């Protein structure tokens, strides 16, 4: 083709992720079958699937959920589903997700003009803006009034509960997926803006990931850190309950209000995304900044996914509850019994700490969990990463990614990302589902 004078674009990205060297991705052995299946069902293997394929058991249930959410029979038309996802992804300035869904949106027969700005979309869709905004950044503010505004008889155009719950799951799913996309530093697909170039490759430019190098620098003292972490995990498991109740509460408060600097200023998001966001300045704020009156925390025992959330979703959107339940279960049980260079490790406490820390950032408290162990197990650089990815995903940088767990495998870091993503999804869903339950009461 180039002989005929047609410019052939060249893919810029040297692998699915900017953080993980492509070489490493494939030597770490993504499960071939999963990728084949994903290729057969989607017609392409996107970067997302490639990175997730580091954890094939998760990828398979993720694809199932994704398929059920976007393709199977449901109350919302297919183009709407993708548009809702676009709206959700735009909140996190995630042009990767926006472009992926824009393509799917057009394929589903969506109106092209909608993509140029929210004002072209139907009022009914625009009605989701507030919910989208809260769900993305401060889900604890969602109340039954928000639900009522959309659902009650006076609201025009009106959402049915089934449609609404479908939309909520789509939004929450996409928000948390944005966390994953940013957290793993996914490169744009070759057909995305910024994913290809028409410039010939400069001969001096040897594609390499500089970050990759500094990730391996301190291998020596890294080994010691792992030892320490493992020792702490074992200690925690054996430790007898010693502290008082007051101490427990204080520990939760401490984790919640610990100031983790996350505000790294980034360049303005691409135009493509900006048009699709209302109030782009609305961002995550600490659930309860120090010294301020905090909104009531949510007790995990009073509204849990297993007891309440599942039943509600299953009732309003049959089968969806099952898919989500499976996802949560796969993530919470996912382990390879290894940590960095050690094999046969029970990582339960570490995974639990991570999960509960994220819920803690969203103001969900487990009465039966000692938040002291979060402090013991999660090093500061990890907390910085987790908080950034969960709450301000668009501010994730390669530096933050490489700074924590320096001696861990990349697949383990992706695992951490999966936990962040699912914990975040569950937290957002719980708040919304609780509001819907109150509304239905």
């Amino acid at each position: 083709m180039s002989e005929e004078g047609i410019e052939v674009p060249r893919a810029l990205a040297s692998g699915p992720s900017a953080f993980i060297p492509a070489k490493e991705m494939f030597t770490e052995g993504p499960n071939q079958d999963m990728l084949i299946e994903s290729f057969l069902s989607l017609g392409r293997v996107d970067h997302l699937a490639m990175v997730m394929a580091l954890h094939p058991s998760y990828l398979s249930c993720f694809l199932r959920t994704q398929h059920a959410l976007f393709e199977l029979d449901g109350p919302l038309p297919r183009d709407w589903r993708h548009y809702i996802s676009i709206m959700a992804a735009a909140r996190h300035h995630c042009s990767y997700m926006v472009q992926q869904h824009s393509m799917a949106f057009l394929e589903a027969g969506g109106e092209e003009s909608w993509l140029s700005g929210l004002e072209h979309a139907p009022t009914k869709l625009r009605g989701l803006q507030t919910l989208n905004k809260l769900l993305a950044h401060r889900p604890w503010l969602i109340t039954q009034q928000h639900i009522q505004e959309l659902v009650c008889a006076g609201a025009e155009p009106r959402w049915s509960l089934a449609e609404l719950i479908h939309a909520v799951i789509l939004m929450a799913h996409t928000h948390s997926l944005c966390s994953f996309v940013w957290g793993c530093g996914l490169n744009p697909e070759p057909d995305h803006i910024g994913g290809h170039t028409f410039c010939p490759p400069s001969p001096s430019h040897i594609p390499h990931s500089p970050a990759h190098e500094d990730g391996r620098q301190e291998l020596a003292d890294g080994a010691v850190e792992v030892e320490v972490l493992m020792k702490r995990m074992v200690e925690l498991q054996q430790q007898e309950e010693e502290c008082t109740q007051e101490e427990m509460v204080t520990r939760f408060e401490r984790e919640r209000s610990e100031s983790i600097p996350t505000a790294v200023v980034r360049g303005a998001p691409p135009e493509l995304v900006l048009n699709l966001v209302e109030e782009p300045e609305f961002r995550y704020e600490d659930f309860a900044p120090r010294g301020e009156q905090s909104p009531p925390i949510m007790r995990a025992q009073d509204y849990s996914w297993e007891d309440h959330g599942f039943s509600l979703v299953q009732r309003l959107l049959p089968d969806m509850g099952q898919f989500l339940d499976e996802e949560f279960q796969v993530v919470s049980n996912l382990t390879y019994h290894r940590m960095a260079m050690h094999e046969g490790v029970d990582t339960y406490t570490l995974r639990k700490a991570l999960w509960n820390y994220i819920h803690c950032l969203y103001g969900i408290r487990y009465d039966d969990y000692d938040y002291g162990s979060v402090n013991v197990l999660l090093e500061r650089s990890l907390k910085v990463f987790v908080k950034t990815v969960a709450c301000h995903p668009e501010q994730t940088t390669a530096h933050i990614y490489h700074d924590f767990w320096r001696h861990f495998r990349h697949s383990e870091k992706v695992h951490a990302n999966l936990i962040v993503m699912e914990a975040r999804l569950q937290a957002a869903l719980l708040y919304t589902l609780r509001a819907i339950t109150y509304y239905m009461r």
Partner: protein
Amino acid sequence: MEKMSRVTTALGSNSITGRTMFCHLDAPANAISVCRDATQVVVAGRNIFKIYALEEEQFVEKLNLRVGRKPSLNFSCADVMWHQMEENLLATAATNGAVVTWNLGKPSRNKQDQLFTEHKRTVNKVCFHPTEVYMLLSGSQDGFMKCFDLRKKESVSTFSGQSESVRDVQFSMKDYFTFAASFENGNVQLWDIRRPDRYERMFTAHTGPVFCCDWHPDDRGWLATGGRDKMVKVWDMTTNRAKEIYCVQTIASVARVKWRPERKFHLATCSMMVDHNIYVWDIRRPFIPFATFEEHKDVTTGIVWRHQHDPHYLLSGSKDSTLYQHMFKDATRPVDKANPEGLCFGLMGDLAFAVNESLISSDASRKPYPGGDRRYPFFSFKKANPTEQFAHVSSTLSVFETDLDSNCMDWFVKTAQLYLLSGKPFTELCDHNAKVAQELKRPQVSTTWTMLRIMFSEPAPGPNQNLSKLGSLPLMNSFSMKDLGSVMGPEGRLERHKGESRQDNIHLEPGNSHISNNNEENEETEGSDGPTEYMFGDAELDDDDLYPMEHENQAVPEEQVYTLPPEAFQLRHEIIDNPSAPEHLQQDKADSPHVSGNEAEVTCLTPIETVSLISISQPLYSPHLHGSFFCPIVREMLSHYAEQGDVQMAVSVLIVLGERIRKEIDDLTQEHWYMSYIDLLQRFELWNVSNEVIKLSTCSAITCLNQTSTTLHINCSNCKRPMSNKGWICDRCRQCASACAVCHHVVKGLFVWCQGCSHGGHLEHIMNWLKNNSHCPAGCGHMCEYT
């Protein structure tokens, strides 16, 4: 609700009196428990822990156990139980994993007695042994059950549920050593308290968590379980394998289940989500609750029968911060509201009718149905069971047999099959349908069709005018004629029309890039029903040239959508998975100028049969009397047919008239007609016709019927197992399913195979192969034959 209803139940020496009453709590309750003599009740929740005395008229707060200025999480209770032997002893399960016992006999304000903090996670349930004073059992989210001896500081034994969360533990009422535990993964385990190493028995009771279980108070073998799957099941545990003997399906996940005292078959349930009522079921009548208490405004979290030998009082606590005492007398009885009449059609048109006997005897003057009325006595009398409190409704079953001939629906089937609804010009359709009706001896219908044709067809030359006259029709002359097109012979016009439409079709293709015209590709892909139709509908014609007569009528443009009958379509097309597509296509159809060239031509060509009618109508027909003039009449006529039960006629006319009438009839009615007709067609298994009707309908609600359940499940041809993959590779045998023997690609559409050697492949490939070869393409040596 404050109904005054006193009941005194004699229970030996102490009698219980009371009425339906409630009191406000300060906070939502999580659980309640009652002391043995039924005089006090304890309410526990995250922010409440109080004891109320049950007095005759009201609840009286006796004691607040939640003391201290900043109560610790030990007071945040998930469950509470009052000891049934020792009236001063209570136990609570705290959300932070503590098990706490309380001694009401303590003189200090803080009644806390023992504190066990052995569980790592929330304790879901505590249970005292029914006869042993110091034995307490707990079940926790961390997957362990622990047995405590209250005289010791630590648990005496720990039972492991293999890290599956324990939702409920219950000591058996009769077997001293046995307890049951229910789990989040749907299992129920039976344990012997003396053997902490291993459960005695385990079975899967529900899909999803089992939230609760309860032993029958009298029958030692019965265990009731309730789960998130909205079921209550009763298990017989006396046999070797736990056997499900009763099952009640509720409308929401079951949070608590409690057997009703003194009533062997009754149990009470409440739900975890959405549903706020308390139901009492007779497990032998699983379809309708025996009694319902509807007082609570939020989910009920705790239910308990007030006294273990009194079935009339039920206490309940709820998230709406109220505590209720329900009198059984005041319960709603859903049975009373249920409809006791039943009506059903048999396969051959018989009608069975069951009704309360009292109703039918009063109607003695009833005339027997001519077709035959056999009255059956109610055949399956249940043995009157004194314990069963359901009202016995003795019903009479009448069966009305229909005379097979009189009610024969052959005409319906024939009509449905023979009617033409599309694919030909309007007049031809009418004529054809009129003929069909005539042949089936339905003159009225036949006449209707003829009338319709006359009303709505274009001004046409009389029957006696032959083709040669057509060029200079007097009628046409009265219109402003623009060009020579009209003087051209019909054949000429037709030629031109064809040419144009073909061109247009070619034009269309690039626009619809997803329409694959290539045969080979069509074989592979499965196409929407859209494209083919679309091409026909959109063939743009220059109306002005072809059809001068239309000119005056432009005000109300008639539009007719031509589609091929469904059989003519390629069987498989690409499924464009797009719910919005139908509307889109329809719109296109509606917007596109109709293909009326054909119509004009045919109008002229077709000899018109019903001479008499035409000869009358001819003089009446003025050029200005347009079809819309008749619309009100036609509308009434259609409604008349529909009401008469001939919805077939209504729908057929609706389709054939299309745009001419559609706007006149409101969408709901149309939809209703379509639905009824489609339903009828499907009952007669006229799938093709019903599909055609669905396609031709213009209601979006109907056309989308074709879009639902389009999933096709396939089995792998090698291992015969269902293909769970989305691709074409079976995950079990790792082979491509059903490969073509000629091209070795996967066959995704029609697969033809030889019945002799069972090899096969793409229909077309096999056809081509067998034109030149006589042996099987797979090389098995079989002489295949293609016929």
